[in-house]
């Protein structure tokens, strides 16, 4: 009968997009925004916040505010790259499984089930430990394990598209697979793939933070996770320093993840037919 009202307004999605835009700018302009080079000792270690160091200094005397600003680059980059890897794999698997169906589908979906059951973070830790620290290793490990969920979502969308009459009609008219895929199926999964990409990025940023926190991040590039790693090693959260050393980095991670999540769920709700209200 009448369409039900959509559950949430786009306002929250816009808030998320705004957050991401702002963070993107910070990442781009990092060298100009930060007062010091984060890799150089600027002052004495363990300084509390002051006019010169708005967030104080860390255990070896580097400016925490500058670390924070430069960390935006690394965290965003790793999150987005890992999501790109995950989504490329996921889309490929989802498309192949959904479009061809049959034994190929069964096999690929069993694989997805297997990957989903394995405890994610422990496996990431194990692989990262063996591969050694490094940005590309982190990207590959996260991306190489996070494809299962997008694959499953995209597959079900492809399956539902494939059975729609207009896709069958296109095949019945003599449309070759390339025509049907590019004309009807791919446009149908693009919005959903975008949503999955954004959600994978938010997940990727959290996992990267965890890895760096455990000391498995890239030692050359400073990410928010690695800042927290050193803060934890020095027991900063049990001293007064947690307010300027621990709090800001975590807030930045939270903000970034939240931005991606808001945009992702908004996109998903907007484009995933299964999540639209009512029947």
């Amino acid at each position, binding site marked *: 009968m009448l369409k*039900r*009202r959509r559950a949430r307004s786009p306002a929250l999605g816009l808030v998320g997009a705004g957050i991401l835009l702002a963070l993107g700018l910070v990442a781009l302009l990092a060298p100009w925004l930060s007062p010091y080079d984060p890799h150089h000792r600027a002052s004495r270690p363990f300084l509390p916040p002051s006019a010169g160091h708005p967030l104080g200094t860390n255990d070896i005397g580097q400016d925490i505010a500058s670390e924070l600003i430069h960390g935006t680059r690394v965290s965003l980059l790793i999150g987005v790259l890992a999501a790109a890897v995950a989504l490329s794999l996921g889309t490929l698997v989802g498309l192949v499984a959904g479009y061809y169906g049959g034994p190929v589908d069964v096999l690929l979906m069993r694989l997805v089930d297997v990957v989903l059951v394995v405890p994610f973070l422990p496996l990431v830790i194990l692989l990262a430990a063996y591969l050694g620290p490094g940005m590309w290793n982190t990207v590959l490990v996260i991306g190489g394990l996070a494809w299962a969920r997008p694959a499953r979502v995209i597959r079900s969308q492809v399956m539902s598209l494939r059975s729609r009459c207009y896709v069958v009609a296109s095949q019945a008219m003599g449309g070759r697979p390339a025509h049907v895929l590019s004309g009807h199926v791919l446009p149908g999964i693009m919005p959903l793939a975008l949503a999955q990409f954004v959600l994978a990025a938010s997940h990727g940023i959290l996992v990267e933070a965890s890895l760096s926190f455990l000391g498995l991040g890239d030692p050359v590039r400073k990410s928010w996770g690695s800042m927290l790693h050193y803060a934890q090693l020095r027991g900063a959260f049990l001293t007064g320093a947690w307010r300027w050393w621990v709090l800001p980095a975590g807030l930045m991670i939270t903000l970034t993840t939240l931005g991606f999540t808001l945009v992702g769920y908004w996109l998903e709700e907007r484009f995933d037919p299964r999540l639209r209200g009512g029947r």
Partner: protein
Amino acid sequence: MDDLLVIEDLVVAYSGPAGEVRAVDGVSLRLPRGASLGLVGESGCGKTTLALALVRLLPSCASILSGRILLEGEDLVQMPETAMEGVRWRRVALIPQAAMNSLNPVYTVGWQIREAIATHERVASREADRRAAAALELVGLDPARRFAYPHELSVGMRQRVVIAMAFACRPPLIVADEPGSGLDAISRAQVLGLMQRLRHRLGTSFVMISHDLEEATALGDLVAVMYAGKVVEVCPAGRFPGQARHPYSRALAAAHPPLRGPRQQLTGIPGEVPRPGSPPPGCRFHPRCPEAAAACRQVGPELSKVAPGHHVACHLWGGEGL
């Protein structure tokens, strides 16, 4: 006169982003005790909204703006929700659209019939179970089926289960919304036959809602035709569709090819059903009406009497007032 159900000037509206949409716009109907009414209309004419309004189960975005629904003299529109819960099923049961899919998949059929009984009557569980078995027997199902889950029954059997459930508390009125849709021609005819037999045996009144003329007239003493939120014609079932007066009713009857007799070009109705929310001015049928006159474009006709028990809302048939 002993009226079981009286609907007076009922207006039901959905509130949407485009504003208020009146799905039912000033409907008045009268149903004597023991009689049945067939309500015919196409999709979007407001018949399902009317059915849901009768038991006050409209979706949250819809509400009754004005009018009265008198069931045995009591106004359901003003009734508090808790009292309404007591009215549902005991005094008016609803067989919803696609009823065969409206059984809860995780409970047995018997459990669901027992729940209906136990909600309204204080009965021992053994007694409720006995009555659930009897209800299934009433609709021609093996009483042992009460231990089955819905997914273990065929579509036709599930439809019968809901009918059995509707009779379980012996309500004086049952509202059935498209009880035959989703069934095959033969099982549909059998389900209609079953409802006809039960109605005569138990004296239950029906409001039978359908887009299908045969289904709507199958039980009907009365037939009402709805178009774009309004009732355009009410007449005794015997006069329908043969002596129907409204151009829409007649066109509807002629739109379906006959099974016997010479094949002839179908006339059909030009144009499309108006979208709810933007009905044309004047008579809502005038853009599609072959006999529309100037007055039809400006003034909406009221129901007026053309024969005993036969009322038409059409300027071509301006009889006495209601």
